[in-house]
Every structure is written in structure tokens, then in C-alpha cells.
């Protein structure tokens, strides 16, 4: 039903009534660009929250030890608490059904070299479960495994950037790397979403590190993830219970905040989720608000346009225009204006977001973008609303008796 003459009429009408067209187009463009900008900013806030926690599994619990700050059970304050391998095993046994993955960590600072390349790195000596706790992706080779732990093999898994630094353009897997004078075989290369620092780490079996650096079974930190089937309340309860039992095990006062510290990501995740949820509600409110403002604007515009064109409609009817042709000429004109102005507004909004991106990053707004689906459906809603808002006055106008429309004011 592409009627060239009808479109010619419409383009002429738009072209010859520029002020009217611009005004109604401006309403739509403004609403849509505002929609895109606000939506993008809120999305950027959500992105910031998401990336802040993407590094570690969100069901992680970190257990650290320190020195006691309070006397308890007849022991003085200032006692140093040291975790050992058996403590990890104890946690695993005690909370078997609640623990998903568990690993110990030992930290070392090393100077690593391969041929002429040399640099300082942090070594994390870990158990195999650590891979899942840290969301580590193995790019080549393999990760630390149980057999490494058992045999205390001298192997390492190095970060993508360590490979880049030391092995230049060659493959590291299978080669030997020198850490503080001891040769380790590189068995894997990993990448991590947590950023450059995470990719400049070296992982080795914890048993190897314990034997070579100290010949003991000390660990610096115990990390675990709880069973993901636990809900927030259960997870927080588990964290509290774990802390309580560990304090009993080491004869630490329950009020001692320093000797044993259990950091439960569940509570942090809950806050983040609440924030994201709140932002989501904000997005909805903003979205609907702008859309409604746009719809009201278009409706007003349409009523005004029909009023302004009453006389023209009367003339057209006197010359033999059918009611249908009156409705279609008014409606198609408004839809056309809405579509063109809508897309311009869209580009404007997206453009402003793109330009403001670097500035916005200072305000914790990361990558403030809007999906085309959302914006397009907003635009579609506006067009539909404009069509409905325009249809009623257009229909009414088409029914006006020409004699009424032609009456001299």
C-alpha cells in the first residue's frame, strides 16, 4: 500500500510547515535522547558494581589469621595464630556439606628469570581448588593438580603477562623458569578477569612451597567457597558459625576481631545485589517517566496539529477527500516525524554518552551504554503512542463537517 502521491502530500506538508514539524519532532527527539542518556548512566553504575566483584567467585569466604588482641582461656593477648594444613582439613571435615571448594594460600615474593629476562613477581602457593575460587582460566597446559601436591613437584602455572614479560613471543609451557635460584617447570599459562595484577602472578603447589621455603606446614590464608545452593541467610549463618568454631579451636575470645578474620562475600554480594536491584527500579522509573513525558508531548502536539489543520481538512473534504485519506495523511505525517526525530534523538543520546564516557568514569560510571533493543522498544512505544494519540484527533477531524471547518473565524 505504498502510495507515492500520499507520501508526496505528506512530505510537502512536513516541508512547508517546518516550525510545526520541528516542534513536534523536538519533543520526541528530546524524550528519546534523555531516555538513552539516563538509561546509559544507570547501566554504567550497574556495570561498575558488577566489575568490582567479577574477580572472585561471589560465594567466597576468606579466612586470615593474626595476633590475638584479647586474653582468653588463660592465654595472654599478643599470641600469634598460625594456620596449618590440618586446619584446612578440619574446616573441610567440619563443614563438609557446606564447603564447595577449599584451598590454602601461601605468599612469596620472588625474582623470576628466563634466559636474559628478569622481573619480580608474587607467588601464590595453592591447592588445586584455587582455580575455581579465583575464576582462573587456563589458556595453555594445566593448573596445579593433586599429584603435584602429593609429590611436591617443582612446577608453576604462570600468568599471561608473566609469559609475555619473560618468554617474549615464545611459549612458556614445558620450559624451566628460575625463581630465586631454583628451577621450576612451567606447566600452564593462565588468564584472569581480575586485571593486570592478577595476570602477573605465579601459582605453585602449596606443598612444594612449604617444603622449599621453611620446611613446615604453615599456610597464610584459607579460602573457600560455600555450597552455592545455600541462600543468603544460610551462607551468612555458615560464615558466622565457621568464625565461632575456628575461634574455639584456637582458643581465641569470641570478641577478638584481630586473631581470626572471616570475610564472607555473601554479605557483600547481598549489598551489591540490593544496590543493583535499587538501580534497576530507578531505571524503570526513569524509563517510564521519560516515556510518559514523551507520550504526553506527542499527544499535545497531535491535538494542536489537528486543531491547526481543521480548515485545511475542511477544504480537502469539500474537494472530495474521504475520511480515510484525512486520517492517513495526518497519522502518517506524525509517525514519519516521530520515526525521524526518534532516530535523531537516539543518535544524539548515544553520541552524548560516548563523548561523556571518559568523564563519567571518574564518577564510577563504567561503559554507560544502552542496548539497542531497549532503546528501539522505547522508540517503538513512542511511535505507537504517537499513532494512538494522533489517531483519535485525526479521526475526529475527519468527521468534522466541512461547513464547520470552513466557517470564517
Amino acid at each position, binding site marked *: 500500500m505504498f502510495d507515492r*502521491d500520499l507520501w508526496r502530500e505528506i512530505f510537502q506538508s512536513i516541508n512547508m*510547515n517546518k516550525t510545526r514539524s520541528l516542534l513536534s519532532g523536538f519533543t520526541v527527539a528530546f524524550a528519546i535522547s534523555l531516555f538513552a542518556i539516563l538509561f546509559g548512566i544507570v547501566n554504567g553504575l550497574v556495570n561498575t558494581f558488577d566489575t568490582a566483584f567479577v574477580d572472585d567467585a561471589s560465594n567466597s569466604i576468606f579466612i586470615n589469621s593474626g595476633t590475638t588482641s584479647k586474653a582468653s582461656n588463660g592465654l595472654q593477648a599478643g599470641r600469634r595464630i598460625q594456620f596449618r594444613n590440618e586446619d584446612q582439613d578440619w574446616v573441610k571435615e567440619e563443614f563438609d556439606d557446606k564447603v564447595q571448594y577449599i584451598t590454602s594460600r601461601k605468599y612469596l615474593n620472588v625474582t623470576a628469570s628466563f634466559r636474559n629476562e628478569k622481573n619480580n613477581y608474587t607467588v601464590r602457593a595453592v591447592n588445586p581448588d584455587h582455580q575455581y575460587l579465583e575464576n582462573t582460566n587456563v589458556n595453555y597446559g594445566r593448573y596445579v593438580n593433586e599429584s603435584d601436591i602429593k609429590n611436591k613437584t617443582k612446577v608453576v602455572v604462570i600468568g599471561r603477562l608473566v609469559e609475555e614479560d619473560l618468554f617474549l613471543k615464545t611459549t612458556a609451557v614445558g620450559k624451566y623458569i628460575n625463581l630465586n635460584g631454583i628451577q621450576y617447570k612451567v606447566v600452564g599459562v593462565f588468564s584472569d578477569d581480575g586485571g593486570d595484577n592478577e595476570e602477573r602472578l605465579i601459582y605453585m603447589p602449596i606443598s612444594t612451597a612449604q617444603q622449599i621455603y621453611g620446611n613446615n606446614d604453615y599456610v597464610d590464608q584459607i579460602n573457600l567457597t560455600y555450597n552455592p545452593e545455600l541462600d543468603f541467610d544460610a551462607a551468612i549463618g555458615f560464615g558466622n558459625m565457621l568464625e565461632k568454631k575456628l575461634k574455639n579451636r584456637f582458643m581465641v575470645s569470641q570478641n577478638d576481631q584481630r586473631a581470626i578474620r572471616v570475610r564472607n562475600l555473601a554479605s557483600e554480594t547481598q549489598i551489591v545485589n540490593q544496590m543493583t536491584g535499587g538501580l534497576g527500579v530507578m531505571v524503570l522509573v526513569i524509563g517510564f517517566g521519560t516515556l510518559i513525558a514523551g507520550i504526553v508531548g506527542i499527544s499535545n502536539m497531535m491535538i494542536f496539529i489537528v486543531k491547526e489543520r481543521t480548515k485545511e481538512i475542511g477544504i*480537502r473534504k469539500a*474537494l472530495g477527500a474521504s475520511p480515510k485519506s484525512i486520517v492517513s495523511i495526518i497519522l502518517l505525517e506524525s509517525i514519519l516525524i516521530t520515526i525521524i526525530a526518534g532516530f535523531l534523538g537516539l543518535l544524539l543520546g548515544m553520541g552524548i554518552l560516548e563523548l561523556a564516557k571518559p568523564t563519567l568514569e571518574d564518577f564510577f560510571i563504567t561503559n554507560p551504554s544502552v542496548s539497542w533493543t531497549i532503546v528501539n522498544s522505547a522508540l517503538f512505544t513512542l511511535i505507537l503512542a504517537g499513532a494512538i494519540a494522533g489517531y483519535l484527533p485525526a479521526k475526529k477531524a475527519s468527521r468534522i*463537517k466541512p*461547513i464547520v471547518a470552513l466557517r*470564517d473565524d
Partner: protein
Amino acid sequence: MLKISKLHKSYPIGDSSLHVLKGIDLSVEAGEMVAIMGSSGSGKSTLLNIIGMLDEADEGEYILDNVPIKNLTEKKAAIYRNKFLGFIFQSFNLINYKSALDNVALPLYYQGLKRKERIEKALFHLEKVGLRDWATHLPNELSGGQKQRVAIARALAANPKLLLADEPTGALDTTTSYEIMDFIQSLNDEGKTILMVTHEEDIANMCKRIVRLKDGVIMEDVFVNQVRASQYV
């Protein structure tokens, strides 16, 4: 050509209603040129509007070119208006954002003619009213007389059976009025049936028949000796 009998029309005013036409009987033959006269409020414009299908009668019969005009749907009225009638208004009623040519071509558009044909015909009629050189001008670039001539060209474009003119010279000065009347007379000479509402005696006398209305009824219906407008031009 046109036959009206026992036509009634009233308009509601608040709670009561104003009886404007109280039983009009009128018949017009093809080729006639009739002036409908009367003071304001006599119902002359209402009568013309009903004849022009711009308004509907409450009661009575109206037959135009052997077609009874009754219970028209909007769509049908639109078709009849387009096919049978050409309108000339006091205030010209040109569409102000369309050029003279596009204004004249508009009824042809509603007839469904192709663009090329529309432009050809519209130019022909503009030529006829002597405004071919003004085809691309907008109405506000034309003088009152020129506007009315464009409006006449538009009324003629669809080749209607009946030309209806509502005070066609009402907005024009005397000289221009006579020019327009001269042109309308020449159309009548060519055989067009013309019905016009006027309250000016000199204009009415340039028609062939005068129907005088008063308070909604026909007081007088006489054939007169046509005064040719050309002698004043």
C-alpha cells in the same frame, strides 16, 4: 439538474432550536445561472451548503443530476462532492502551503488521477483563468483577485456539473469583482450551471435568475435580464 422540495433545516441553539429553512422548493435546469439573495440570517448560505453536501437537511428531498442525495455516508458524500460539485468561497480557501498549481490539482488527486495527468489538467485550467505564469506561486504571493481565480480554476478542475459560489466577490473590490463575474459569466456561456449566494444587487443582476429568501422561505423567484460584467471591465 437539481431539484429540491420541502427542505427543512434547523440548528440547535442552547435548549431551543433555530428553524433556518422552512420548506424550500427549488429546481434548477442545466445551464442556468442563479443568484440566491437575502439578508443575513435568511438561510441563503445554509441552502447553498446543503446543495453542496457540506451540510445535511433535516427533512425534504434533494435530487442532483437524477441522484437522490440522502443519508450519505462520509465516504459517499466525499465522492459526490468530488464528482458533481465545484466550490468557490468568499475567503478563497486555498491551502496556504501549496502552490497555485498544487491547489488546482488537489481535487484531481482525490479523483485518483495520475500525477502527470493532474499537472496537465491543472495547468490547462490555470491557463484558462490567465494565471499559468503564476503556477508555482504560493497563495500569499497572489492578489485577492488572483486567489479567487485560482480557486475558480480549482473548482473547475474536476469538471463538476454544478458550480457553487458563496459570496465569490465578497472579499474583492468592485473592479476585481466585475472581472471575476465576467469570468464566471463566460463559464456559464460555455454551459456550466452556476449557483451563487450574494447580497449585492449588482452582482445578482449579472445572473440570469434571482431567488430571494427571507426567514427561511422563498419570497421571490424571477428571471432577469443578465447584465454583462464585461461592460464594466
